[in-house]
């Protein structure tokens, strides 16, 4: 069981286009043979993925291809059926692993923001540092305020989420995840629920994170954005990573027919 997995690991790491100098760096994320079903519906069917520190990986593919489920599995929101997930060399998919401790290292931002509606912005951001990291209230709020300032949200500090625009809410959700100082950020179609004119401000935040060296796995339908920001693009189809490569190669010269069909549809829809 473990042998083919290891060889699968090695292959995907070796074939990664940015992987020429990767041998010396330990991957931050290693996923091997990941399977996940909901009842009889098999959503993930053998995902192999390696992400090195500071790498930005974009997951593209049609709805239902498994992008969101993959991200939710990495964050252990969804229990997996088979395979292994390693973060920083530690197998987080092992039984008896402290789920809460793993999740502290991984920030996730959802399509629907999922801010806590009964708390002000600063409380949303400082809740987890206070309760999980036991940061004193004053210090946690100060740090939250600094983060909000950094992302242009200082004046929204004491507002409640329902008083903010979608773009502002999503930026707060990103800040809330950053407040836990995660090593890895998972972004799950974070602009899909936004009005078109609000998308740019959110993507700007993600660009800033990438520039700061944050390791990210981004599920997105924004192909232009993926092309700009990704070190590597993975095309998901029917629960597998069908093709992976630099954005230049994937978007201009995909090898797989399915990838080409998907991109043609995206172009036809005017989204690339």
């Amino acid at each position: 069981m473990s042998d083919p997995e290891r060889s699968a690991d090695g292959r995907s790491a070796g074939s990664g286009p940015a992987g020429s100098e990767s041998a010396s760096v330990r991957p931050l994320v290693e996923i091997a043979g990941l399977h996940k079903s909901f009842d009889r519906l098999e959503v993930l069917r053998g995902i192999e993925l390696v992400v090195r520190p500071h790498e930005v990986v974009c997951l593209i593919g049609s709805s239902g291809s498994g992008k969101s489920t993959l991200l939710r599995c990495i964050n252990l929101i969804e229990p997996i059926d088979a395979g292994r997930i390693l973060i920083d060399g530690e197998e987080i998919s092992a039984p008896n692993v402290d789920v809460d401790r793993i999740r502290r290292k991984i920030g996730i931002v959802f399509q629907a923001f999922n801010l806590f509606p009964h708390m002000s912005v600063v409380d949303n951001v400082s809740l987890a540092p206070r309760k999980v990291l036991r940061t004193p209230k004053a210090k946690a709020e100060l740090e939250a305020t600094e983060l909000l300032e950094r992302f242009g949200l200082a004046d929204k500090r004491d507002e409640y989420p329902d008083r903010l625009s979608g773009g502002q809410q999503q930026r707060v959700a990103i800040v809330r995840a950053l407040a836990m100082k995660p090593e890895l950020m998972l972004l799950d179609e974070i602009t899909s629920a936004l009005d078109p004119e609000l998308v740019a401000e959110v993507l700007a935040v993600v660009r800033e994170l990438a520039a700061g060296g944050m390791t990210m796995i981004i599920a997105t339908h924004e192909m232009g954005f993926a092309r700009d920001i990704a070190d590597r693009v993975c095309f998901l189809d029917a629960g597998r990573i069908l093709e992976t490569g630099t954005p230049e190669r994937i978007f201009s010269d995909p090898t797989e027919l399915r990838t080409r069909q998907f991109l043609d549809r995206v172009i036809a829809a005017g989204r690339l």
Partner: protein
Amino acid sequence: MAGLASGPGDSGMLLGVAGQGSPDRRPDRGSGALRSTLIAFISTVVFFIVVGTLIVNAEGWPSVQRSFLDGRVFADSVPLIVTAFWVNVRLFVVAEVLILGFGLLIAVLRSLPGPVLFPVRLLTTVYVDVFRALPGILVIYVIGFGIPGLGFTGTGNEFIYAVLALTLIYSAYVSEVYRAGIDSVHPSQDAAARSLGLSRLQSLRHVVLPQAVRRVVPPLLNDFIGLQKDTVLVSYIGVVEIFRQSQIRQYGTFNFTPYVVTALVFLVFTIPLARLTDVLVARDRKRSAAAAR
């Protein structure tokens, strides 16, 4: 007889007024508010005149008036009955605090996941089922007469048994209200909290429960209106509260007027709570409509 004969004709007219009033109101909302108010006022006045006339002209009215609306008995009963009502208020307040806590505990225990906790879920489910199925008066009897019957010395008095019985009965209902509230908080809220590293209990405590409790305040108040009234049931195990006191007065005066006093006390006390509930429900609806926009 004349009054009875005129009855059907009058109530027919009354129905006619009401029938016109309600379809008119919908298209007119906003613009014809004054006219609607006027129609409502007239129909109300007519209704009460008709009903009042019917009752006062009934054959048995003079004897009913003597038995239920005796001015002297009324005046004499008020101080005693209002004093006795304080027992109900104390019962109500103590039981309510306990119910809020115990009901929440039951609701939380019932919603805990995992096979290990199956016995906990089973016990709480049985508790809720049993106490919702039993008529309250039976529970009050069993506790009020059963526990003293066990013969422990110094284990309390009727007041404590009454509080215990009311708490057990109402916590079953209230825990279901809480549980509906917990279920109404979208799972994505818990997922967001857990993904930040909060434990299951921390997520419940800081994210799920605050939202759940806020949503169930109106139905909780509704249950407490019921509790307020059910405090009279404990008169059967010997607590001298408002209903028992009015019974005592009735036996003393051979007159039912004390019950009318009791009814009025409850109206004065309960109606404001009912209105408050309505206001909260309306505000809640407005808020969720605003959030949906």
